[in-house]
């Protein structure tokens, strides 16, 4: 079993979340949590249930931070 087969999901009580504020981007959020803007894809992939485009996030959205 690879690590990718057991991702953190929203029903995991230890999952961390970030509520999007006005003006934030996935890159900025990735930098905040991972120290690397390029890891925004990780957050996007973990939130495909509520995001269709990594460039389109809205204030108030509750993003799962894997």
């Amino acid at each position, binding site marked *: 079993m690879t*690590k990718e087969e057991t991702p*953190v999901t929203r029903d*995991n*009580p*230890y999952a961390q979340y970030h509520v999007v504020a006005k003006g934030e981007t996935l890159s900025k959020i990735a930098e905040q949590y991972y*120290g690397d803007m390029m890891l925004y894809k990780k957050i996007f992939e973990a939130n495909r249930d509520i995001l269709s485009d990594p460039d389109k996030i809205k204030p108030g959205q509750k993003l799962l931070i894997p």
Partner: protein
Amino acid sequence: MNKNQLLPLFVAALLALGACANKQKPAAEVISAAETSLAAVKADAARYAPETLAAVEGKLASLKDGFGRKDYDAVIAGGADLTGSITQLEGEVAQKRQQAEADAQAWTGLAADVPQMVTAIQSRVDTLSKSRSLPRGMQAASLESAKEGLAQMKTDWGKATAAHDAGNAIAAAEAARAAQSRGREVMVLLGMPPAG
């Protein structure tokens, strides 16, 4: 030595024999009662308090040796200590049985919680390991400590599930709680919030 001189010795020997016979029965009863009490608790004691059981069985064997040597006074004198040890053993077994029942109930929650904690931490460690730099305020040493803590968590969880599979609820819960406790420490290192 004439007959008059032998008589007192003969009488003394008879009295000693009589005294000996008088103590044989109570000594036998001491051993019998101890064996009965021990038999009632032995199966659970072997599971929950094997070291104390071994000590009690050693005392019983010692008294049996004394009985075999016809040292009935020693058997009777040692009876109280053995009875006390058996009572102590019964108490220890009852306490451990109660703990095992409580831990068996706690296992359901631990079995649901710890793997999720491992998953969340593993995910964060994997991502941070790919990062070109670390988030503000996090030192490289913290990430390394987190990796070591995660490895220890997995080891503890492996011990927990093995103990659970072997039917040892107390050891299973103890190892699972160790994993859980370590997980909380690792989450702090990684800047992750507690559950809920």
